[in-house]
Structures are given as C-alpha cells and as structure tokens.
C-alpha cells in the first residue's frame, strides 16, 4: 500500500474565508500541522454493496408517500477518479439536497417554501468497477440564507465520499451550468482558483438525458492520488 499525496490547498478554500461569515468563528485560526502520511491515513473504510439498498439511488422514489415528487426530474452521472486519472471503484457516494422549491426536509430549515410529501432528498449509491456512479433526483431549487442581504444559494446537491482512504475523505457540492447565482455565492467563490471551482459545476449531457424522462448531468469527482513510493512504516 502507498500513501496519499498531500491535499492540494490551491484547489480548496481557506479555513477562514471572510465572504462566508460562519467561517470566522468556526475555522481553525492556526495552520494545520503537516504530518507524514502513514498506515493510518492510507487505510479507510470499505462498504459492502449491501450498504446501498434498492431505492437508495433514486430520490424520485425513495421518499414517496402518495404520489410523485414535484419538479424537474434529472439523472446525475459521474466518474470518481484520483488525480492520476485512476478510476475509484466501490466508493460510497452519499447525497442530500433541497426539493424543487428550495426547501430541505431538515427540521432546522425554516425557509417559507413548501415541503414535498413525496421527496425526502437524501440517498446514496456506489461506484461500479469503472468508478462510475449515478442517481436519479429532482433538480433542487435555490433558497435564501442569512449570510448577507439578499443572499441566495445556487441550485446544488451535496455529495459525501470516503474514497480509498480516510485521507481522501471529501464532502462537496455539485452545481448546475449557467446558474447566475454562482457568481454571487461566497461558498462557491471562496475557492479562490477559478479553474478549481469550475470543477464544482456539472455539465449538461444530452447523451445521459433519458428520452421523455429525465435531463442528464455529468459530475466527475477527483480525489487525491497516491504517492508512487510505498510507505516506510
């Protein structure tokens, strides 16, 4: 087993990111201490295929109580790979999001938009042998938040991945192409490198679009790669 390359801080936002106000009291104020990546960081949890149940990958069906969820049905495809382009098989991908009206099922969300009795907005899937994943859902709506006057989050889906090791853990958000709110959203913009933050925007795909059923989006995810040399300990 080899260790993982260090996190590329140029591809991520800083801990304290003044545009996103909650970071001011919550981000560590001191630089993280570099440590040599070893056995611990090279290992990580493996999930049995049974961790994902039959409807977990279909958010249009897994929260139904009395009908179909409202909104624009979409299918999201993506490949999980590392920075060397190696596909990452059997990776658990957990997703959650707002409904089409921009409302989360979460009890704390008090946005004045309707809940959908047929949409919970959470699910999960696993990558196949080639690193590909897919899930069905409803396109999430934008919603206001309290960061500054007239602040609105762009449409987004939250994704959580463990990757091949604990060191490659990633929680991110997938955005949609052409969303005018992106250029106003500090959570998106605090990733300083414009090339890096473009990687957060999915691509519309007519090839993945299902005739008469759902619009297709492609969202590839890149995790840290491994060092070429084996670990010393």
């Amino acid at each position: 087993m080899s260790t993982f390359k260090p996190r590329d801080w140029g591809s991520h936002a800083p801990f304290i990111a003044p545009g996103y106000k909650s970071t001011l009291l919550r981000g560590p104020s001191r630089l993280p201490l570099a440590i040599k990546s070893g056995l611990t960081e090279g290992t990580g949890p493996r999930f049995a295929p049974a961790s994902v149940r039959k409807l977990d990958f279909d958010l249009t069906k897994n929260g139904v109580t009395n009908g179909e969820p409202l909104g624009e049905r979409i299918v999201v495809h993506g490949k999980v790979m590392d920075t060397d382009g190696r596909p990452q098989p059997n990776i658990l991908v957990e997703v959650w999001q707002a409904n089409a009206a921009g409302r989360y099922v979460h009890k704390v969300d008090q946005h004045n938009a309707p809940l959908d009795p047929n949409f919970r907005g959470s699910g999960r899937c696993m990558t196949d042998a080639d690193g590909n994943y897919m899930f069905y859902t409803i396109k999430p709506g934008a919603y206001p938040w309290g960061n500054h006057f007239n602040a609105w989050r762009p449409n987004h889906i939250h994704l959580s991945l463990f990757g091949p090791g604990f060191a490659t853990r990633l929680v991110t958000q997938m955005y949609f192409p052409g969303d005018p709110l992106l250029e106003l959203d500090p959570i998106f913009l605090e990733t300083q490198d414009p090339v890096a933050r473009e990687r957060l925007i999915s691509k519309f795909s007519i090839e993945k679009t299902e005739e008469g059923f759902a619009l297709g989006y492609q969202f590839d995810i890149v995790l840290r790669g491994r060092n070429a040399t084996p670990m010393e300990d």
Partner: protein
Amino acid sequence: MSYGETPSQTVGPYFAYGLTAQQYGYDFTDVVDPVVAGPDADGEHIRITGQVFDGNNDPVNDAMIEIWQADANGTYAENPVDVASTGFRGLGRCGTGTDAQNRFYFDTVKPGVVADGAAPFVNVIVFMRGMLVHAFTRFYFADEAELNARDDILQSVPADRRDTLIAKRVETRTGVEYRIDIHMQGDAETVFFDV
C-alpha cells in the same frame, strides 16, 4: 494525465437527514453511526464523548464528527466482511445536534497500537457549517502517558498544545468514558493536522 482535485465544500446546516438520519430521527437508514464497535468486538469497551466549541466558546450544535481507528489488536478493519463477523467497524459518525449539551459520542473499543513507536489513537474529522474544508485531528488517551511520550506525531506537536489531543479517562456508572473537547479557535485551539 493529471487532474485537479474537486474542491471541498461545507457540509452545511442540513446534513442530518442524509448523513445521520437515524440518529436525528429521520426516516432513512444510516450507513455509519456512533457505534464503532458492537458488543461482541474484542477489547476494552469505551465511550468517547465531548463537545465542539467555536471562537466564542459556544458549543456547536450542527457539527458532524467522524472517527476511524484500529481495533484492539492495532488492525484497521478494511474488509467489510470482517466488520460483519467481528462486530468491529472502525468507523463512526455522530452529529452534535441530538444531545442537550451538544455532545458527540462514540461507542467503541480502545484501539491497539498500529506501529512501533506509536501510541494508541483515533483519527478524527471535524465537519460543520462554517467550514469549507474539513479538519483532521487525533484523539490520544490520557492513561497511555508512557506511549504518548514516545509517539512521533504527538511529540511533533508543540508541548504546550499536546493536551488538546489527549482524552481524559473517567470511570462512570455505565463504564469507561474518555472525554475530549474540540476547540476550533482560541487559547485552547485543538491541534489540526494536514493529513
């Protein structure tokens, strides 16, 4: 060909019905929960618990903590089949929004030593609204002073900050608890690692 990393984004305030649904009482299963080791797992059964404090020293009620640790023999449970047969999962996840004092907790076994020159420890990741990038830290154990004094990584931490990584052992009515708080900022700021 080389590809750039996908940027990290915050877990936000509304992760619970996706990532910790059963803990928070939503109608969805959890793949990972606060039970790191089931009752049949070998080793000393312990609970690890603590709070997360922000820069105002207020407890954070919407953080999510994950831990990853070796079993009592110092082995990481990388094979899901082993997890099923031994009751040891090695991985835990807990939100701080369901306890009146906003504590996280993990029911686990005390980990063994994974390598010569290392003290037993637990790997920790801190997520919350207000963090665009998660932070890695470690929990060590106060009753392992001798091994802690020889642990390369712990000793690489400035001496006056080492205590932020050491969980205190408390014997309670229900068993052994290790208590450790995570301070995001301030004089007692937890040491985080660039893993």
